[in-house]
């Protein structure tokens, strides 16, 4: 893991994708996230919009873009649930910002790094969600940390498989 200055790494390795990829991949993640739990039953230990947010934030290396993307994905997820709109939004906004900030500073091509990043950011997202719901809004919430842990593991494994596939969609110069 090599440490570079933020500007030099960002200038060197900003990834670019066709516009259609920016539109279709997040949409596909939202649709699959809504549909797949009906197929896999109660084993829906994954959060595809979060994985996609982390991927684009790491690839673009722009905290602002990561923030906006995280906020959009989170708000979409909230809109499909019956919970207040903004809880997931806040969690994924922070995840997008942090992922992009980390992506500037460290090498993220390594599978182990991707795995650990997704695991830790998934847990962070759960903590922020829990904090916002329980303490900021003061609402009652049934919570299972074991499920959140399983979800973090699921997200990490999906990221290891999905990131190389999405890498193929980037524009090569």
């Amino acid at each position, binding site marked *: 893991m090599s440490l570079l200055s933020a500007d030099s790494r960002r200038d060197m390795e900003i990834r670019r994708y066709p516009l259609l990829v920016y539109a279709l991949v997040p*949409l*596909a993640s*939202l*649709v699959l*996230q*809504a*549909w*797949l*739990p*009906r197929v896999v*039953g*109660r084993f*829906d230990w994954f*959060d595809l*919009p979060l994985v996609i947010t982390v991927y684009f934030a790491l690839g673009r290396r722009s*905290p*602002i873009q990561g*923030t*906006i993307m995280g*906020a959009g994905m989170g*708000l*979409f*997820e*909230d*809109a*499909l*649930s*019956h*919970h*207040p*709109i*903004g*809880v*997931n*939004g*806040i969690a994924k*906004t*922070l995840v997008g*910002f942090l992922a992009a*900030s980390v992506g500037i500073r460290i090498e993220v091509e390594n599978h182990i790094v991707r795995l650990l990043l997704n695991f830790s950011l998934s847990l962070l997202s759960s903590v922020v*969600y829990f904090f*916002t719901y329980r303490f*900021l*809004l*003061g*609402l*009652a*919430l*049934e*919570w*299972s940390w074991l*499920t959140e842990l399983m979800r973090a593991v699921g997200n990490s494994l999906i990221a290891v498989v999905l990131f190389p596939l999405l890498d193929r969609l980037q524009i090569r110069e």
Partner: protein
Amino acid sequence: MDSFFARYRNLLVLLAILMAQIAGLAVQVRRSSAGTNTLDPSDPSGVRLIRLWGNAIVSPPERLIHGTKIGMESMWTNYIDLGHVRDENRDLKKTVDRLRLEQAALLEDARQGQRLQALLGFQEKYIYTTVAAQAYGSSGSDRSHVFYIDKGAHDGLKPDMAVITADGIVGKVRDVFPHTAQVLAVNDATSGAGVILETTRIRGILRGDAVGRLEVVGILADQRIQPGEKVLTAGGDLIFPRGLPVGVVEKVIPDPERDSFIDILVKPAAHLERLDEVLVITSTEPRFSPQEEQDLTVSESQKDVVPTAIKDQVKASEIMAEKLPGLVDPNLPPDQQPLHDSSNPNPAPQPPQPLHADEFSPGAATTPAPETNTEPAPKPQTKKPAAPHAAEGNGGKPQPAEVSKPQTPQRRNP
């Protein structure tokens, strides 16, 4: 100043977006009179608009995927896997015939029940009209147990309508869009339904826990509650009609928050994780629907059409009854009945005579009690039929006792 914004641009954007979302959250939460925060059940217009957009964008591709899956499954079941369809059809026809006969037998009971309920002023709500819908999507999160159906406001759906399957209850309509609706499943932590245990008649509130299991809460510890007992809807929540199956008791655990209370884990009757077809109860009425009336008419017309085999069995039993000797012959006087025949080698044993006869002794009911000098017992306040007096005034002929009818108050004209 420009350098400040340029330097902290990322952080400022982050803070601005976070603050906007926190402000948006603030308008969705209400402070209840009990001092606790609750989520406003009626979404503000802006929030509802976001939900509408989210649904409008995600639903079409989701329905397309679901439709493709259903199409492939139906292609398999309709064209390839047809091996047992004919046998199944034959079995179903037999079942329909049997159910028609059973329905005819139950018809009178049902009508009698309705008459009695009307007399008691109690109106049982029957499921009147339902709309069949296809479940196609979910919230995508196990923190929110909601799913989407392909029927909406244009099909007459409204919030708080009950959603069921043939197996049991599923949830209630939470939000209605033009062509779709969001259903809150019964295993969500924010859900609630009044339920009753079938045998012990203990009532409780059904809801979901953190991992989506069904549990009945708010029940005092009771040894009679055993695994396997059926759980039904109690009908007091004004959403689910009474008596719908909910599930069976799986386990009884102590309430972690309150002593002497227990929680009952319930195995749901409906497959909540794999829902396809559901029924939305759009109205409940205190009468049978036209379809049910038609079914009952068909059953009534077929009630007399007893199958030939059953007719033959009845006829054979009647012939056997005529030929076999009976203990009571309606054509003979009482002293010549076979029961009192002295030539009978196996006479019926006489009951032993009691040493001290009391009111329970055989024949005591018909023997008048001897008059004594003690004071007469006070008359009971309840009304008795006037049959004995009527018999006296009618030349000793016994008259049938009148059936007491509930007195309805006379309506006064203004």
